[in-house]
């Protein structure tokens, strides 16, 4: 057994006066109700954040959440209940409420718990305790001072440091038994610059499941510099063009394209229900042959990384699209069972009070062979999009958007003037077939992604090399 399970039991069970046997008995009650799967999920999460504005750290907050979630799955049905108090009574009530989905009674022996042997893919330390308050405050002040030093057009600087530390333990009637500690850190710098009548904002942020000490010494200054650069570029931006045209996407964070255009549409639940534009298309060509797209929760220390998912399934690299051919979906246990597929370590929940569903971890495209400069040169007239705010998809029609916050015109194969922010819109399966060049410069995003689905938010990562999409609609104002 990895030491992660006994450690999680010390955090989650012992203070509540619960034993491993109590948990196993609760699983027996769930199994006795005739459930296909009964599951207990226990979670303890602390979060701390510090905010700087007007040159001073004026606010900080601390949050503590702990609780347990109980599920009983039967066929396509789910019974779910949760309790904020991890106490014997709360557990018993939640078990009875969840098992009311099934009509049977009694108790039943469950399969022996089999501890996962997955080794941690990220740091297991508590980032909140690892640094003193004064040192945390100093990080924010350094970012503020750097931003103001760089350019006197900087008017406002906001800096936020967010530190999270979660311990989870999951046990289920299929024998799943896993735990891990999940740190998550993030530093965000946002600036407002002004020149004459024009004002613009710029943003930079970074983080991951790793200690603050692992970031470069100049981390706050580097983020400040990047935020100011983004804002100043936009001071000179001209109106964005409107209509369909070629777009070159920069590497890294623009991988939000993949998250929206194919990622959500390849989640198991939508495909089991037949509500995704990608349903029943395994083995078909859904992207150009240049495209190989992978979801991988095992990447070390990334924001979307997990050793095990919230159902205790170890994460893995899951090939979604290989050379343009649709290979597989991302699965949690419920959808994997109903589709006769294997769980892929993508069962995630926002907290004990939410229910798991198939979610992405880190989603990226494998690099190709093209030199990025060559890709831009191959585009006589179009747009070079470097930074994005966020995106959204309608998985049924395949229609998706992502909104550029830093982009440039490409004229005669050269990057020229910056353009105002604009939304790009396309249809996932169509746009992916128009990826005509893929760069050799795969990079992953800096670690600020948040993915929302059915009201639940989880941290994710994206990445891609430089890409040329032959045609996508740009929502500018210049016609």
């Amino acid at each position, binding site marked *: 057994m990895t030491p992660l399970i006994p450690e999680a039991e010390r955090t989650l069970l012992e203070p509540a006066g619960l034993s491993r046997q109590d948990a196993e008995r609760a699983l027996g009650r769930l199994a006795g109700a005739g459930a296909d799967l009964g599951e207990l999920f226990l979670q303890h999460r602390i979060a701390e954040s510090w905010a700087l504005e007007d040159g001073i750290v004026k606010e900080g907050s601390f949050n503590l959440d702990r609780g347990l979630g109980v599920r009983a799955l039967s066929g396509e049905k789910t019974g779910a209940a949760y309790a904020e108090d991890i106490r014997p009574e709360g557990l018993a009530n939640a078990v009875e409420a969840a098992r009311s989905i099934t009509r049977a009674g009694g108790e039943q022996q469950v399969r022996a718990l089999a501890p996962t042997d997955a080794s941690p893919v990220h740091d297991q330390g508590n980032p909140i305790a690892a640094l003193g308050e004064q040192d945390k405050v100093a990080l924010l002040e350094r970012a503020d001072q750097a931003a103001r030093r760089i350019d006197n057009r900087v008017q406002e600087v906001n800096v936020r440091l967010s530190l999270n530390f979660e311990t989870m333990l999951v046990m289920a009637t299929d024998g799943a038994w896993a735990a891990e500690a999940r740190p998550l850190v993030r530093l965000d710098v946002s600036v*407002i610059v002004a020149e004459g009548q024009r004002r613009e904002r710029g943003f930079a942020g970074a983080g991951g499941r790793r200690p603050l000490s692992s970031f470069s010494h100049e981390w706050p200054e580097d983020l400040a510099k990047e935020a100011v650069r983004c804002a100043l570029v936009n001071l000179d931006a001209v109106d964005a063009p409107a209509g369909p045209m070629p777009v070159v996407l920069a590497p890294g964070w623009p991988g939000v394209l993949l998250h929206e255009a194919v990622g959500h549409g390849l989640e198991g639940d939508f495909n089991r229900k037949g509500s995704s534009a990608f349903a029943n298309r395994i083995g078909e060509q859904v992207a150009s042959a240049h495209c190989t797209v992978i979801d991988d929760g095992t990447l070390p220390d990334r924001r979307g990384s997990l050793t095990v998912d919230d159902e205790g399934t170890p994460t893995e690299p899951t090939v979604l699209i290989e050379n343009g051919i649709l290979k597989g979906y991302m699965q949690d246990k419920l959808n994997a069972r109903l589709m006769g597929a294997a769980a892929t370590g993508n069962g995630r929940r926002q907290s004990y009070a939410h229910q798991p569903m198939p979610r992405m971890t880190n989603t990226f495209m494998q690099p190709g062979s093209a030199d990025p400069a060559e890709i831009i040169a191959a585009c006589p007239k179009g747009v070079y999009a470097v930074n994005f705010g966020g995106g959204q998809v309608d998985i049924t029609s395949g229609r998706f958007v992502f909104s550029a916050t830093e982009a440039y015109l490409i004229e005669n194969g050269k990057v020229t003037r910056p353009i105002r922010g604009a939304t790009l819109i396309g249809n996932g399966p169509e746009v992916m077939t128009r990826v005509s060049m893929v760069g050799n410069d795969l990079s992953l995003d800096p670690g600020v992604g948040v993915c929302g689905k059915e009201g639940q938010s989880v941290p994710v990562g994206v990445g891609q090399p430089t890409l040329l999409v032959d045609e996508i609609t740009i929502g500018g104002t210049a016609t």
Partner: protein
Amino acid sequence: MRQDVDIRQQEGELTGLAEAILRQAKRLGAAAAEVSVSEDIGLTVKVRKGELETLAFNADRSFGIAVYDGQRKGSASTSDSSEGAIEETVARALGIARHTQDDPCHGLADADLMAAHLPDLDLFHPAPLDTEAALAAAQACEAQGFATDQRIVNSEGAEAARSQSCVVYGNSHGFMGAASTTSHSLSCVLIAEDSNGMQRDYWYTAHRNPGALEAPEAVGRTAAERTAARLSPRKVATGSYPVLFSPQAARSLAGHVIGALSGGAQYRKASFLLDALDAEVASPHLHLVEQPRLPGRLGSASFDGDGVATAEKAFIDAGVVRSYVLSAYSGRRLGLPTTGNAGGVHNLLLKGRTKAFKALLNDMDRGLYVTDLMGTGVNGVTGDYSQGAAGFWVEGGEFAYPVDEITIASNLKDMLRQVAAVGDDPDQRGNIITPSVLIETMTVAGGAAAT
């Protein structure tokens, strides 16, 4: 399973908890403190293709505290209301306050602004948490959806939800206010298909009073009609056209304006309506008003997040900005009194030169009716607006065909001045209540430009 719950019976206990937390803050040395305790009990039943899919029970209690140590502030919150957790959470908030810096604007709202009188706003209409009744409503709703149009081939389900919540806010002025509310809703998401692919859409009903909900069959029928109407969409030739926002799509426009008028955006100079007090920013027939104490509404409240009494006001009156959206803190930052909007607005209504929906279509003659917006392409600092859209093309004042995979773009400053008229069809479901809004012209990007 059926539970008779009345969360008002918890008000006393939650108030006691709030008082204990404030006492603890005082004992540990806080000069001032404010606390918010909330409890929420609910049931959600989801049905898909006629079968029960999810049955979920929730019972949440949590509290948050802000403490002031001189002019320094620290906050903490937790879902654990045990004695030990209260102690730890208050200590954490004070620990944080010791490491933040002085801000002269921090502190409670002035004592004489506290809501002295808490009227009954008719927000509490409990019904038993009855799984069988919820299941029956969701099944009837979805079944009517399938029966309405044979092109409805699939469903993401119908969901019936009931909840009761109680929020108690108190501070070291001695103010203590409690508000218990109920919420009932029913929603349905359907999928239609034809030879050109699948489309989804939805409809929902939500109210504080279960008796005021739309019938399940009506919700299912509307969801089906809306979904089927989107089949076989086309693109629009790129160009400039009048754009009519549906009441649902217009809700976000009002939201962008409130964001720009919020105290935070003003003092951070991050607003496209910066320093706009008393300036004309919108068509002279437009009004954006807040009516926080309307009885029975989803947004109603008698006190804000600072304990300050809410009051009716116009943010925009006849096109002119008459008030920002201020809390005690953001008000002090701007040298203005709070507007009772800590935590946001309560029942925001957009009003203007009103015409029947059909008359708006006739006025538009040829243009775009937008029912659905997508994306994050709104820049609150510059007002630059670029969003994904879907809806219907209008030709000669009539719906011609559905359109999607298009964008609409302009700048919010121009859009506000170009509101030609609004509809007589405000959508009452929610905190922001907007009618259809006709904008004179926006850039629509879709297919190749018209030649």
